[in-house]
């Protein structure tokens, strides 16, 4: 029974990992590749760790596997965040079928600052559209 559970956990983890690899190979641009690899990769590693911990059934091994799982669970979103941030800041081209890029109109590439459209921005970082609208309001 224990062997069956361990086998199912290991093979499910391997399935998630091959899904991540196929996604990272086939998907068209950086955000979709990140969508495939970070979630499925972390899930596959966690299920493999659970299978190994159940196979050995030892307190020492279980503690180390649990520590690795917690570490992956903490660091995978941070790594995905820094990769996506670097990709957007460096101007990595999106897929031509992308229909929504909400940062494009409100993001200043020179100063790396965002605008919501409501705040009075400082004089030095006002983008051209923002400045024009405030002049119209004064008239």
């Amino acid at each position, binding site marked *: 029974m224990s*062997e069956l559970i361990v086998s199912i956990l*290991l093979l499910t983890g391997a399935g998630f990992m*091959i899904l991540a690899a196929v996604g990272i*190979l086939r998907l068209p641009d*950086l955000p979709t590749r990140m969508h495939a690899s970070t979630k499925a990769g972390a899930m596959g590693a966690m299920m493999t760790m659970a299978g190994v911990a159940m196979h050995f059934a030892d307190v020492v091994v279980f503690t180390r596997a649990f520590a690795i799982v917690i*570490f992956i669970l903490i660091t995978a979103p941070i790594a995905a965040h820094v990769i996506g941030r670097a*990709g957007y800041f460096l101007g990595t081209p999106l897929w031509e079928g992308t229909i929504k890029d909400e940062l494009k109109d409100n993001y200043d590439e020179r100063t790396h600052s965002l605008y919501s459209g409501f705040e009075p921005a400082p004089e030095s970082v006002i983008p051209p559209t923002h400045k024009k609208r405030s002049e119209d309001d004064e008239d």
Partner: protein
Amino acid sequence: MIEWAVNLAITVFAVAIILNLYRLAIGPDIVDRILALDTLMINSIALIVLFDIRLSLGILFEAAMLIALMGFVGTVAMTKYLLRGDVIE
């Protein structure tokens, strides 16, 4: 049964690593290569603990932990280098 499952899982992880290496080689942008390296790190952690079962050792978890730590620090350092031009100013 457990040997069969472990062998099949090791084969699948090896195929996943080969696909990631292909993306690492052809990646059109450098951030794609960093993403492929990050996924390779997670793949290698799982492969090391599978070899731990295969060899019935139970002592390879420190290596997996070290690779997880160094892989995360390496990813953050590479993106910092891309954005700022230096890692530690």
